[in-house]
């Protein structure tokens, strides 16, 4: 017999691995990707493929030749970043812009800080916001669903529901008139509207979100706090002045809110560690999102809101502590 192996307890290990968690997120994103391929056709396929391949390639090359460490591309995190970056891009975006976005996401957003686990900001959003600021024209042209399934960069484009709302309200048009220009709520829920590749179908995103919750990949705190705070904030504004403010349901279904709440804000590395901290983080994202949408210059604010709250995460972790055993209960 060989020598006995001696190690401190525990001697059992659970089922979770980084790889399983990351692939769990990928599986959860597949329904939304399929919906996108249905509505946007080859554009969705090309953008997703370019983004994933270039993110994986940059991660591998940077780890191998710059950091000189064993590449960990198989852990699935770069795949998640690539897919999420694609989800945040319009489906007619030229491929070279996507490659630049991937380089910023992986190179600047993740690897400069030391790779997985060390980045303060969500890498996919770093990439997306960089592109949004650098290529504002390409990043805000939105293909029309179904009509341009067989076209890529030459797709027919138009404004998103949020764009219509922003434009219209600043031109003193009332919400009820604007509502006639945007798709019905049921269509929006299914994903039949203009928008980034993966953000349109709340239905598919919710299905994936429920899958992640059931497999305990994420907890409910962040998605619920983000969605609830947007609902409450826009609800108050709508009750005060329904002519100049869209109703809460519109805000929930439009733009990248559901995608952000379930998939971007819940990024492990860049979100708080305690349930209480997650609530603060989520409410912050909700409030900043609505503030940008309603009072800001941009029609959409989820990406900025998440990045801003990412910056507060170390502070939240420092001051929001879990209640220790025996600290809070009145015995008896």
């Amino acid at each position, binding site marked *: 017999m060989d020598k006995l192996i*001696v190690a401190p307890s525990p*001697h059992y290990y659970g089922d979770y691995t980084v790889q*399983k968690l990351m692939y769990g997120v990928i599986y959860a994103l597949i329904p939304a990707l399929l919906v996108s391929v249905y509505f946007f056709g080859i554009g969705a396929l090309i953008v997703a493929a370019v983004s994933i391949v270039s993110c994986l390639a940059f991660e591998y090359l940077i780890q191998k030749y710059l950091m000189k460490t064993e590449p960990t591309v198989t852990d699935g995190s770069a795949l998640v970043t690539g897919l999420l970056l694609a989800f945040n891009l319009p489906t007619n975006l030229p491929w070279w812009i996507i490659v630049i976005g991937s380089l910023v996401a992986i190179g600047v957003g993740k690897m400069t800080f030391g790779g997985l686990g*060390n980045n303060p900001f969500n890498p996919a959003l770093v990439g997306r916001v960089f592109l949004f600021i650098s290529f504002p024209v390409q990043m805000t042209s939105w293909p029309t669903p179904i009509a341009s399934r067989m076209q890529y960069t030459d797709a027919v484009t138009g404004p998103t529901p949020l764009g219509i709302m922003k434009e219209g309200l600043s031109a003193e048009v009332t919400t009820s008139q604007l509502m006639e220009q945007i798709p019905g709520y049921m269509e929006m829920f299914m994903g039949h509207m203009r928008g980034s590749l993966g953000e349109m179908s709340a239905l598919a995103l919710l299905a994936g979100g429920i899958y992640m919750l059931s497999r305990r990949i994420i907890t409910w705190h962040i998605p619920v706090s983000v969605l609830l705070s947007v609902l409450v904030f826009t609800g108050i504004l709508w009750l005060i002045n329904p002519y100049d403010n869209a109703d809460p349901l519109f805000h929930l279904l439009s733009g990248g809110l559901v995608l952000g709440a379930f998939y971007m804000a819940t990024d492990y*590395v860049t979100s708080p560690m305690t349930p209480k901290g997650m609530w603060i983080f989520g409410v912050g994202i909700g409030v900043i999102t609505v503030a940008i949408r309603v009072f800001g210059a941009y029609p959409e604010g989820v990406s900025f809101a998440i990045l801003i709250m990412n910056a507060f995460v170390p502070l939240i972790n420092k001051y929001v502590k879990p209640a220790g055993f025996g600290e809070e*209960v009145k015995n008896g």
Partner: protein
Amino acid sequence: MIKTFTKGGVHPPENKLSANSPIRVLPLPKTVNIPLSQHLGAPAEPLVKKGDRVKTGELLARGCGFISACIHSSVTGKIAKIDKLMDHSGYRRMTVVIDTEEDEWQEGIDTSPNLVKNIALTGAEIIEKTKGSGIVGLGGATFPTHIKLSVPKGKKAEYLIINGVECEPCLTADHRLMLEKGEEMITGIRLIMRALEVEKAIIGIENNKPDAISHLRSLTGEYPGIKVQPLKVKYPQGAEKQLIKAIINREVPSGKLPVDVGAVVDNVGTAFAVYEAVQKNKPLIERVVTVTGKKLAGPSNFLVRIGTPVADLINAAGGLPEDTGKVVNGGPMMGKALNSLDVPVTKGTSGILLLSREESFRRPVLNCIRCAKCVSICPMGLEPYLLRAASEYKKWDIAENERVMDCMECGSCSYLCPSGIPLLDFIRLGKASVSKIIRARKQ
């Protein structure tokens, strides 16, 4: 109603392979190695010397100091030597080695199987008897029982909580004992209740042992003070503080004792040992040990004399499987890996677990991805990821402020970490360093 504790907890696979195997008496070993330190506290002082002939149940060493326990001979035979030998912890400790000759019990010990239910002694006498019989907590912590039973002045125990949880995967010793020695155990519980002067006793059992729950329920019918409380299966429910929380919904504050919230917790095995000591005059010289493993031919529960080499138990259960990687003294979550099969069974040995080589290796360590699972499952409400970082960078002040000393080393964080980080190893390092600092500060 099924209860459980509220904060954290995990669900490791149960693997209770030996649950249906009745307790068998292991034949006497050729020699026994009886360490003089089988309990929490000071080692016992030997009363015998090399060459002495001792009977089964004879006192070998007397507990000295406030926290200590007596040690008795588990066989009849000649003392071959008293020397420092390795025990399950891997350290060398003073050990009495006895060559077994026969099994002649010390006079006055009742070895008949007759059940004695009638309680004749007073509380103080029961505590004295417990002390003289060397009884310690058999759940694993091996805290001397007579100290627990002597409630400090000014404090009042309200509840006796009996721990029949056995939340460690694989182990079934307590389960079998509840099924087979239920009457004796209930008498033991009544003895402890008298010693503590409490009216209420609650036996906590996880509901993966429905047979034990219904069996003890039927036996406790005639004693209105004793209740059986089914518990939802969750690790580490057998930990003292978690069990108190689960059953009477009180939280023992950091640094306090269970009696500060009016509870005293004893293991079912301890209750049985108290019965034997008080009613049968029999010291603690044997205990039930589970021997188990997926590759083992016959996972079993044995009644084993203290001091029996671990190898004897494994041979009796079918021999050591070819590809054994680890032999664990205890369960898979909190047990200690042994580096030799010659070490003896002691009072705290609840099981011997064999793991194959495949099961024995840790996973490669990846970066922390801050998934917060360790924070959400910590039953003490700590932040293991932070304690790990504090230990890694030797920031002992941070570790202390983050309550590293509250960690009871249940291992849930290391168990669940998706990055395979040995969080508990780092926390142990932190605990050791911080306790050194605290001791230095007090001087």
